[in-house]
């Protein structure tokens, strides 16, 4: 019998085109997602070298990072952003790549769009010039974020040069308590291992708490693999996965569907396969999580006090905590609960799908957001927006006093004018709390949509469990 393999190894083995001694493997890429920010220099590179896009049929583009979330009938006011968006559309036209652009009804954050169209499928290799490509791992795909040089490589050759990764088992067993979500699982993992903890690794999330998650929740978990330092993160496909994909626009149909499912069923990790590293998380004991500092590893259970710099293991880490508390204007030892906030942002490729919006709406329904808080709800895609409106969620948000906007990255990255003012505090469902990430001088608390919605109502950091 052959040696038991992890799903990570299987997907890898299935895609090695060539492997020379002392060189990285040429890995074939099944799906390449492209967006406006990290692609223009890659297309320019192709032009300079006189190269074509090898497989336009495995490539698809959308625009998400720099576009406004104001009504689509309005033009893009920022001339630099407008140029970038126009450049994507003209590059796609020139190279024959399908593009769901600014006015497309399929436009969306690239990691929301791919899965909802059925483009992301189990066992695939997926890349995008964006570090949150790991999101697609929720389907049992090996999905890497890549730089612009590599975007050019994949456009030209449909291959990526890649060194093998270590396998890192993240086992989450148990049952989540009310008020605790997929976002809290991933924030808890990153708080435990630190933001460099998964360097050179691919996470495989497994265990009973993972298999009972919906596909959207699995995407939330896999999305933040990069915040744990990993190259990718994935979850073996199961019936939940197949059910989600079935019937979507780019999913296999008819006989091809049956053949695909038969192939996908071979993917899960074999009994007895060894991992390079493992960690176990007890879902039963998790609380809602929130970050207090300036990297996603600086997270605590919401009932806990903010750590003091002495919690650092060495001088540099103590200094990092001091610097973070200074930037956040927080005091070590004090609780975060009740800390005033100025803005609540519900959106981003981490938490902008239907289930996220439904959770936020369930909290906001029949309530009002605090008059001192600006609350923004930004759906992940035009499709999510349509579906949410069909369910009347937009009415719930508006009635509560929140803004209901057009799809895009928005205040996750603050490239499009949706941004914090210096010194403002924001509870955000996005994935990064680096200094200035949501606007120069802005201060971010990362949390789940439930915590975000509860905090919007209270006007300060709130424990959603108190109002469930």
């Amino acid at each position, binding site marked *: 019998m052959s040696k038991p393999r992890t799903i990570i190894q299987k997907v890898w083995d299935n895609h090695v085109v060539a492997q020379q001694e002392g060189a990285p493997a040429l890995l074939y890429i099944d799906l390449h997602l492209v967006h406006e920010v990290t692609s223009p220099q890659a297309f320019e590179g192709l032009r300079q070298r006189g190269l074509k896009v090898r497989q336009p049929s495995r490539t698809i583009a959308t625009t998400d990072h720099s576009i406004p979330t104001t009504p689509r009938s309005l033009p893009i006011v920022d001339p630099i952003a407008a140029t970038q968006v126009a450049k994507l559309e003209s590059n796609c036209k020139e190279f024959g790549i399908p593009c769901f652009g600014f006015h497309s009804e399929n436009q969306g954050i690239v990691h929301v769009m791919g899965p909802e169209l059925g483009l992301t499928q189990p066992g695939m290799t997926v890349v995008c010039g964006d570090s949150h490509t790991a999101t697609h791992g929720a389907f049992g795909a090996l999905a890497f974020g890549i730089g612009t040089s590599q975007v050019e490589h994949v456009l030209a050759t449909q291959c990526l040069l890649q060194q093998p990764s270590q396998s890192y088992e993240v086992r989450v067993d148990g049952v989540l308590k009310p008020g605790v979500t997929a976002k809290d699982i991933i924030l808890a993992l990153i708080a435990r291992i630190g933001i460099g903890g998964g360097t050179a690794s691919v996470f495989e999330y497994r265990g009973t708490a993972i298999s009972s998650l919906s596909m959207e929740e699995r995407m939330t978990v896999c999305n933040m693999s990069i915040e744990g330092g990993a190259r990718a993160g994935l979850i073996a496909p199961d019936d939940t996965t197949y059910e989600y994909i079935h019937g979507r626009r*780019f999913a296999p149909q008819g006989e091809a569907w049956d053949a695909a499912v038969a192939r996908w069923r071979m993917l899960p990790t074999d009994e007895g396969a060894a991992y390079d590293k493992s960690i176990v998380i007890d879902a039963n004991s998790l609380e809602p999580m929130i970050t207090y500092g300036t990297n996603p590893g600086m997270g605590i259970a919401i009932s806990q006090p903010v750590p003091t710099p002495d919690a650092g293991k060495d001088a540099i880490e103590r200094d990092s905590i001091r610097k973070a508390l200074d930037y956040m204007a927080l005091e070590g030892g004090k609780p975060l609960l009740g800390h005033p906030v100025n803005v609540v942002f519900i959106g981003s490729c981490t938490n902008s799908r239907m289930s996220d919006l439904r959770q936020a709406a369930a909290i906001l329904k029949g309530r009002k957001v605090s008059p001192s808080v600006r609350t923004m709800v930004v759906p992940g895609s035009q499709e999510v927006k349509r579906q949410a409106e069909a369910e009347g969620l937009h009415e719930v948000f508006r009635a509560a006093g929140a803004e209901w906007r057009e799809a895009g990255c928005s205040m996750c990255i603050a490239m499009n004018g949706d941004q914090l003012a210096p010194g403002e505090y924001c509870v955000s469902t996005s994935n990064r709390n680096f200094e200035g990430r949501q606007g120069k001088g802005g201060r971010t608390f990362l949390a789940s949509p439930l915590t975000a919605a509860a905090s919007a109502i209270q006007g300060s950091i709130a424990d959603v469990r108190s109002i469930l």
Partner: protein
Amino acid sequence: MIPFTTLTSRILPLPIDNIDTDQIIPARFLKTISKEGLDRNLFCDWRYHEDGSERADFILNQPEAQGAQILLAGDNFGCGSSREHAPWALTQFGFRAILSSSFADIFRGNALKNSLLPVVISEDVKQELFALRQKDAGVEVSIDLESQTLTLPDGRQVEFPVDPFSKYCLLNGVDELGYLVKHEAEIAAWEARQPWALNTLGA
């Protein structure tokens, strides 16, 4: 790609762990469609006051930092987004190498593709260099890629790891796309064997 062989330079210290790409080059400068002009905004939010004037207390603005081609940084340098704008900004500013106890994966790969050498050193060597630099802003170190050695100011040599393929590319100024394109026949053969297809153009 410009070849990288040896480098002797003063060092610019940033003793901060987890320096992320949003600090190296904030996202608002990524709306560009070219690679140029990013150096001006390297470490922008640490480097300038609100009114655009330089912060005298930030190391990049200090006279003894000028001309340093080696950055010495805390653990997990370059974490965060995949933006290649980060190594573009660093190289345009004049950096050719970065010393740290560890690098984030995507940043390391991006740096290597831009002839910016990430040199992994031990925690002890890192602390020693921070201390030496604090005492004397003029201290220099040398990097020799061929022998994979870093020569410290007192002449001691420490080895650092580089994968053989990246080393070959850097020493010879070869870029990876050239290598990939040479595998055309194998790529075509692999595609022919694939039992299923995806068609983003259809549906």
